[in-house]
């Protein structure tokens, strides 16, 4: 009963890039030995900066990409080796919400057909039944049945994201992978969509994998959080624990870099030097050592292993207690 809904075990994904005719192909290490579990009914978030592999991880779980090695378990089934055909029936259990509400809806299809399409693929409903269900869903996400007759360009960004959410809900999924669902929206609309996602989670007992770069949004919606850097998860912890007691120097810097909308609060900032290293030639040893203030010789040569330092709190760092000293 308490088995996790999703379990990612040591997943690795690399992409090949062609350099030139004479040089050999190079590999981008997009996801590098990532492991985590998502429990039923919880919201697990992956945070990190652009290029850290969070979206690729999402795509591995959705079987849109196949891992090079490692296992992906969904609902007690290993899915990474399944063929496209074997995956089909499972597709309705995993649905995605995409970042760009402008790019992810077909502009030439009416909204009701957009939302109804998963029903056409996955169920044997008649067209009347489908339309009824679509109207129900439109109401649930805060639009109305009349909106189904329109085309996507007639909607604002927030409304389009609601359409995307309605489409994900059609086939009663168990897991929803939301890849930066609010980052293209204005703050006042962002709050509406976040509240809607939370309401739906309670109503439909959904499990979310929430992918975002925005730590304040993630704090609001998550139960547990994994922080990614250059394709690996450097720290995983329950929400309160992560924000109160971050252990990895990267997590600390990330949290301190978020501007707080309160001018009276002056916080101590840790500004990281330099840019993200290229995932084509990831640094040796600890991947973060090129930007870490506490870097030692050991960090440069030895890759740290995952350490359990509290209840559900793991960290990949040689010196997780360094700042206390």
């Amino acid at each position, binding site marked *: 009963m308490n088995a996790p809904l999703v379990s990612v075990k040591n997943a690795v994904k690399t992409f090949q890039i062609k350099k030139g005719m004479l040089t050999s192909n190079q590999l981008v290490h997009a996801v590098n030995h990532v492991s985590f579990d998502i429990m039923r009914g919880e919201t697990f978030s992956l945070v990190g900066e652009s290029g850290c592999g969070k979206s690729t991880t999402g795509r591995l779980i959705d079987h849109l990409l196949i891992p090079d090695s490692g296992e992906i378990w969904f609902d007690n089934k290993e899915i990474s080796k399944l063929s496209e055909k074997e995956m089909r029936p499972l597709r309705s259990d995993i649905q995605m919400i995409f970042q760009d509400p402008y790019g992810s809806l077909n502009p030439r299809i009416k909204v009701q057909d957009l939302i109804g399409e998963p029903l056409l693929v996955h169920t044997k409903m008649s067209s009347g039944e489908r339309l009824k269900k679509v109207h129900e869903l439109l109401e649930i996400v805060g639009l109305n049945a009349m909106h189904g007759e329109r085309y996507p360009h007639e909607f604002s960004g927030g409304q389009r994201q609601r359409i995307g959410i309605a489409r994900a809900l059609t086939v009663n999924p168990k897991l929803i992978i939301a890849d930066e669902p609010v980052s293209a929206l204005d703050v006042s609309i962002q709050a509406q969509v976040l509240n809607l996602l939370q309401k739906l989670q309670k109503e439909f007992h959904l499990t979310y994998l929430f992918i975002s770069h925005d730590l304040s949004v993630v704090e609001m919606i998550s139960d547990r959080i994994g922080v990614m850097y250059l394709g690996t998860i450097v720290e995983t912890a329950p929400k309160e624990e992560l924000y109160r007691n971050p252990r990895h120097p990267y997590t600390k810097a990330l949290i301190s870099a978020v501007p707080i*909308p309160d001018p009276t609060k002056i916080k101590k900032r840790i500004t990281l030097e330099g840019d993200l290293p290229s995932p084509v030639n990831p640094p040796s040893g600890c991947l973060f050592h090129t930007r870490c203030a506490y870097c030692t010789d050991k960090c440069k040569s030895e890759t740290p292993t995952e350490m359990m330092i509290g209840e559900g709190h793991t960290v990949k760092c040689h010196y997780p207690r360094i700042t206390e000293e």
Partner: protein
Amino acid sequence: MAEKLLEIKNLTTEFKQDKGTVTAVHNVSFDINKGEILGLVGESGCGKSVTSLSIMRLLIDTPGKITGGEVILDGKNINDVPEREMRQIRGKKMAMIFQEPMTSLNPCMRIDKQIMEAILLHNNITKKEAYERAFQVLKSVGIPDPKNTLQSFPHQLSGGMSQRVMIAMAMSCEPELLIADEPTTALDVTIQAQILELMVKIKNENNMGILMITHDLGVVARMCSRVVVMYAGRVMEEASVEELFANPLHPYTKGLVASVPKLGSNVSSLPSIPGSVPDLSVMPKGCKFAPRCGYAMDICHEEEPELKLVKEGERRKCRCHLLNLNKEEEGNL
């Protein structure tokens, strides 16, 4: 006493469309002192970028036209100066940083040429001196290896690096006013922190005035001393940054401040503003915010409120009917 650097009075900008004209910026007024960072906040489509383009007079190739108001830089009205003279002001007296560093740089030109172009245009110096100057500004914006960067093309630089180059370019002629249009929106948080820190440092060194256009209230709280809130092309509220967050007066500002998720606040649901931003071509009749406002009264749907000083002698303004109501109540008491 702080000196006024830029003064904008009743600026109005209209765009011609097939169905008629839309007013993107309507009677906007504010001013910036030397050494001050003024935040211009609002959601997408509220007219903040058009305001900045109007100040720089960069609307020439668009259907947009400034139809009223004055822009006064350093005591001089620059509204009517001919384009030739304007070219001397742009870059030299005021410079601009754009949102997308990757697309704002010319992809076919090496960085050195791009930076030197502005320096050579505004200063009577040799190419060699200009190169030296370009080297120095790149160094001052924290680029670790300026010599190599000068030789690179934009695609060889990361987002943070390109934004540093943009800032260096804007700073190369030591402008008095810097307009930064969402300078960090396209960047990651750790890079954003670096860039914001750099901007404050440069401001302190040169006593520059900065107009910071952003939708991120976190950035505003961290950087700005005063804030102007825009909605549907109008200034809704103006306040010092402390006042704005502690005691927002306009219902829109209240909603905006409340709907931002705050780190460490540990709330499970956010107050949000219902509805969405009105279309500029079909504006509501009265107060432009009335259809989304929780406090809207009959008068709000009929008559547009004026931007009023909240208290005499203070630079605190608000455009809302509720304000009058509160004053009347106080009078009755």
